[in-house]
Every structure is written in structure tokens, then in C-alpha cells.
């Protein structure tokens, strides 16, 4: 046998643009709004295979809402949605700044991705449970969780419900259907499936929602989640937030040779849909559909939210080192706030003036919350939880060795 083979070489995917390049998204295929039809909730996953390669969109460029997936929300609900997104954006800006001023140690923002969590939150019912990552604070804001409590957590002050134990933004609120955020990527995805299985075991009607980033789909627990969800037909909505980046790593490294993240579901017989993550109406409609599907006992749905992380990964990150500075501005799916605002104006339910006024009001609300939180305390300024608190809650009852250690520590 003669060796007539060429030497192999390693394929290392690279993003199209790096710092200094001018992005050109003209090859990025965007289906027309309204083009993807809405199947019945008991559809066979295999019959909607194409939905993993398309994008469900409702809002047209001109602001019109069109197609099967439109029409589910009243103007009041839409205005509320806009308010939630604006609140989240303003909240982020203030907290980012607070971190820069040294008031706390760390922050992570949602810039450009506000629609995903804000719209999703409104598609669930009370009692349902999200297993979020660190970039879905919209679930809390749209769920009515007090801003000042969020800030208390961020500042690790004496009123922090987590008693200063967790990194800023790692919220937890069972009452608001928001599972304690983990710093470890992916772990919560399979936990959401377990929660959903528990609901099914208990003959309940509540459902769970798992959340994961594009980069984190590579983690093994993504697989665990898919396997268990598929086998036990768990009543869960599994959300991938594809914001194109995982810190400095573009989504192609996690995605590899397949066209989309949603397609991952096909290997498991799980219904899989891509949605325009910057289209509040589309996210809400798809989330509603998937939640209904789960609650009716038709099993899991995998949703890929196509969006863009317009800001840095966290306050420790500077994206200008690894991606084109103009990529965010060129991002073809636009800005979720602008798009919902334009829609509301187009249907005569909003004006630029009302928007400016709302912005001012929300800013005031956020500032007031911030003042209140800072009056309680900050990591930098003090009035933080007691040192002895760190020994509490390791177990329900403090075991003897921890009592001894607490005493040794002098608390």
C-alpha cells in the first residue's frame, strides 16, 4: 500500500473579523419577519427540523409585527416589556459604573440581550422555575423583584439576601422562580431538567426553564441535560443564549461544523427552534409556545436565542482586544429596545416624548434604589454581613467542627 496521502492539518476555526477589521454581515442570512410559521404545540420534533436553521422573527424593519407568531401581546404588555428592558439597561449602566467607582468587586451586563430574559419571563407562570446563568437578570426585573434587593446583593451589604457569600449578580429567589446562580458554567442546565422531572413525578403542572450560553453548550452538562430531557420527556424549556461570544472566543469554537446551536437538539429528538433574540415579540411568542408544549406534556424544547453581546463579558473584560470595535454596531438584528420602541410608535401606542419621559422616570427609580442600597452599605464602604455569618448555612445545623472554628475565629 503506497502512502499517497497528504499530511493532515488541524482545523482551528477563526472569527471573520478581528480588531481593525470592518465587519460585513451581508452573508449572515436573516429570514424575513413572519416567514416561519407557527406549528401546533404537539408537533413532532422531526416535522419542524427546518426551524433549527431558520429564525423566528415578528418585527419587521419598519416596526410592523407580522406573521403567525405576532399578536399575542396587548399594547399595555408591550409597553411594560419596553419598560423592563429599559430598566435593565439603565440598571446595568449604573451598576457598571458603581463597580468602576470601586463600590463593589464585579459586575456583568446585558447590553444588547435585554429582550431575551425580559420577554421570556412574561411567558412563564407563577411557580415555574428558571435555572439562569449570570446574564438573565431580566427574569428578575420583569418578575417584579425589587431593584434595591438586587443592588444589596451586588454591594454585598448587610441587607444582601445572600449575606455577602456570593459574587455580585449571583442572585437567588425561589419566590421569583429564579434558581440560585452558579459560577460554574452548564451545571444548572441539567438541574433544570431534574426540577422538571420532579414536577412530572409529582403530578404537578409547573415547568422549568434551563439557560446556557453559546460557549457553554460545549460543557458536558449540556449533554447530560439533553439526554435526561429526551429520555424522560421532561417538561422543560432549554434556552441557549447565542450572543456570538464566550469571553474572547467566538461562537464557532463551540459550534464547530454544524450550522446552528439549535441543531444540537436534533440528535436527541428534541423540538428545536431558533428565534431572533433581539425581537421582544418573537422571544415572547416562542417562549409561550415552548412553555405550553412542556405544560401539555409534549416534552422539552430547545430554543436558540440569536443575539449579540454588545458589551464586555464582565467588568474584567475588554473586548477591543479580540473583536472588531464596530461589530456591535453592525450587528444585523439591531437593538432590542429600539426595535420594540419603534413598533410601539408605529402602532400608535408610544411616542418619542413618552420614551424620553419614561427613560427619565426609570433612571430616577434606579437612582433612588441605588441610593437606598448604598445607604445600607457597600463592599467598599462597609456595613457588610457579619464575619460570623460565613459559618452559617454550610449545613442546616452547624456541626461541632464549625462551631469550634467559629470560636477559633473569634466570632
Amino acid at each position, binding site marked *: 500500500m503506497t502512502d499517497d496521502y497528504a499530511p493532515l492539518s488541524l482545523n482551528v476555526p477563526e472569527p471573520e473579523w478581528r480588531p481593525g477589521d470592518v465587519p460585513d454581515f451581508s452573508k449572515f442570512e436573516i429570514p424575513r419577519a413572519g416567514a416561519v410559521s407557527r406549528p401546533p404545540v404537539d408537533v413532532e420534533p422531526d416535522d419542524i427540523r427546518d426551524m433549527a436553521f431558520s429564525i423566528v422573527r415578528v418585527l419587521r424593519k419598519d416596526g410592523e409585527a407580522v406573521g403567525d407568531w405576532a399578536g399575542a401581546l396587548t399594547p399595555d404588555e408591550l409597553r411594560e416589556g419596553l419598560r423592563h428592558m429599559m430598566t435593565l439597561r439603565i440598571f446595568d449602566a449604573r451598576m457598571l459604573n458603581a463597580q468602576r467607582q470601586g463600590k463593589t468587586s464585579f459586575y456583568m451586563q446585558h447590553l444588547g440581550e435585554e429582550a431575551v430574559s425580559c420577554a421570556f419571563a412574561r411567558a412563564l407562570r407563577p411557580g415555574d*422555575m428558571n*435555572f439562569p446563568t449570570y446574564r438573565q437578570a431580566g427574569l428578575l426585573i420583569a418578575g417584579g423583584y425589587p431593584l434595591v434587593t438586587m443592588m444589596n446583593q451586588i454591594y454585598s451589604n448587610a441587607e444582601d*439576601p*445572600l*449575606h455577602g*457569600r*456570593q459574587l455580585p449578580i*449571583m442572585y*437567588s*429567589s*425561589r419566590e421569583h422562580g429564579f*434558581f*440560585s446562580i*452558579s459560577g*460554574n458554567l452548564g*451545571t444548572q442546565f*441539567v*438541574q*433544570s*431538567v*431534574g*426540577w*422538571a*422531572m*420532579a*414536577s*412530572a*413525578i*409529582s403530578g404537578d403542572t409547573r415547568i*422549568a426553564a434551563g439557560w446556557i450560553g453559546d460557549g457553554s453548550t460545549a460543557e*458536558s*452538562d449540556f*449533554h*447530560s*441535560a439533553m*439526554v*435526561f430531557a429526551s*429520555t424522560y420527556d421532561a417538561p422543560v424549556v432549554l434556552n441557549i443564549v447565542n450572543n456570538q461570544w464566550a469571553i474572547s472566543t467566538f461562537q464557532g469554537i463551540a459550534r464547530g461544523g454544524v450550522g446552528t446551536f439549535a441543531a444540537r437538539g436534533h440528535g436527541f429528538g428534541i423540538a428545536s427552534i431558533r428565534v431572533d433574540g433581539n425581537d421582544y415579540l418573537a422571544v415572547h411568542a416562542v417562549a409561550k409556545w415552548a412553555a405550553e408544549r412542556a405544560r401539555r406534556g409534549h416534552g422539552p424544547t430547545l430554543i436558540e436565542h440569536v443575539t449579540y453581546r454588545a458589551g464586555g463579558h464582565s467588568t474584567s473584560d475588554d473586548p477591543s482586544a479580540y473583536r472588531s470595535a464596530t461589530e456591535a454596531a453592525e450587528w444585523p438584528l439591531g437593538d432590542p429596545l429600539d426595535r420594540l420602541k419603534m413598533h410601539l410608535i408605529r402602532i400608535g401606542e408610544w411616542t418619542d416624548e413618552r420614551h424620553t419621559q419614561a427613560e427619565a422616570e426609570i433612571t430616577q427609580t434606579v437612582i433612588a434604589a441605588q441610593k437606598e442600597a448604598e445607604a445600607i452599605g457597600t463592599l467598599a464602604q462597609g456595613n457588610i454581613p457579619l464575619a460570623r455569618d460565613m459559618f452559617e*448555612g*454550610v*449545613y*442546616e445545623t452547624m*456541626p*461541632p*467542627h464549625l462551631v469550634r472554628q467559629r470560636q477559633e475565629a473569634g466570632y
Partner: protein
Amino acid sequence: MTMIEAIREAHDVAMTRDERVVVFGEDVGFFGGVFRCTAGLQKKHGRARCFDTPINESGIVGTAIGMAAYGLKPVVEIQFADYVYPAYDQIVSEAARLRHRSNGDFTCPIVVRMPTGGGIFGGQTHSQSPEALFTHVAGLKVVVPSNPADAKGLLLAAIDDPDPVIFLEPKRLYNGPFDGQHDQPIVGWKKHPLGEVPEGDVPVPLGVAARFREGQEVTVLAYGTMVYVAEAAAERAGVDAEIIDLRTLVPLDLETIETSVQKTGRCVILHEATRTSGFGAELMSVVQETCFYHFEAPIIRVTGWDTPYPHAQEWEYFPGPARVAEALRKVMED
């Protein structure tokens, strides 16, 4: 009754009294587990409360955590302790810290059971004793029963416990006590007093050691199979050893240990696991910290060697009665 039957009964009692208890793992449902510790449970309690899982330990523990967050009380089986590592992240990063990090907003009352230890010619992947990898992790409790009565009672307590419990079952003890004298005929639990298991819902509290054998000359700290090895060794060496069966490693019953060591002034520590950074190191440390002025001789560890658990050389690896007896003699001479 055997230890297997005792474990089965503990499951059954817990499932009967508490609807929230669910049991799952690889081959755990229809078949009842490769060691048959869950046999009959699916038939009795239904397929939604006792079922087979995909072979994915991280998924088993990960879904258990989600279920616990919902309000159930999952008891899961890892087929062998040697296969717990894929679940290690879920146990360490999630189960162990959930209560603390959420300030009690979510809790994680799960039990992770697994057969542990050697003595069955299982080679490096059916013989390990990974207890020290759990005792280092704040938020976990770690339990090792050494007989059917304790196995049932401790498992009931573990299921009751509001926090995650790692439950290590010395598989060499499933069918009878084993003192490491592998060339002697096997005795079953039927003839052993500890094979008599109380009926019904009688938990054995976590965190309380048992004085397995009274003695005056030296304290032996042991758990699982090593308790019987210690007994055989004490007889062999003719040393009046007090054998403490720790039963729970975390939280540790330091009081019982202290009392005994302060009485005897000598201490030998046993485990099957690899020596370096084994749980014996922690035991030696706490004993040193609490009993320093009572010592008449250096504390000795008798453990597995710092090698993978071998197949053919099993009895040279296993810290059997000969090695333990030698340590007992030595500690008496020092």
C-alpha cells in the same frame, strides 16, 4: 439480614413513609441494581419513584439536585465509587454549596450512595475508597457503615438529613463481615449479631461513632471493612485495642475519639484508601491537635499504598490484619 437487604429495607421504609423520596441510578430500576440494593422498589413504589437512568453520573446527581430544589428527596446510586468522578463537579460545586450560596433559599437534601472499597479482585476501577475527596468539601456529610444494622439506620438518617450526604457502602461487607483473612472461609451476616437489624423506621444518628471493641492499650480509628481487620489484628497481636468505628467521617465524633485516645495514649489509624492525603491524615491531625499531651508513642497510619489499586497484588495492597497487627505491636513498643 445482609447489608444489601438492610439497605433495601431502608429505602423501602423511607419511600413508604415519605412520598418525596425517589430512587434512581444505573440499573437501579427494573433490575434493582448490580448489587441488588434496590431490588423490588420499582415494583412496589412505581416506575416514577424508582427508575433506571442513562449512564451519566453527572446527570444523575445534577437531576437529583434539581429535584431536591423542587422539594423531593432523591436517593441516587453511583454503580461503583470509582465512577463518581464524572459527578464530582455537581457534588462539589453545586450540591455542597447550594444552601450556603443561596442562604437557604434552595437546599439540597440528596443522598449519593456508592459501593466502595476493595477485597473483591475488582482491580483499579471497582475497588477505590474516595472518602477523602469528599471530606475535604465543606457542605457534605460523609457516612461509611460497617454492618447491616448501621447501614439501615444510617441510611434512614441520611435520607432524613436536610443536607447532601455521601453514603459509602463497603462492598466487601455486603454479604458478611470481612476481616482481611481472605484465605479463610467466608462467614455471612446471619451468624453475626450486627446482622440483626431493627424493624421499621429506626435511624442511627449521623455524627456519632461506635465503640466497636473496648480496650485499654491503644485506640484504633477505623471505618467500614477496616473495623473487622482491626479486630482480627488485635487478636493476632494480642493487644488490648479499643476499636472505634467512626461511622460518620463528617461530621466527625471527635468527643468519642478524644476520650478513647486520652485513655489509651496510643493511636493507630486505618483505611483502605491511598495514604497521602487520605482521611487518615485528617484523623491523625485532629488527634494530634486534641490529645498531644497524652501521647506515649507516635500515631501510626496503616493504609493502602500510594499506587493505583492493583488486581493481582490485591492482598499486598489491602491493609490486612498482618500489617495492622505489626502496627499495633510497634505502637506498643514505642
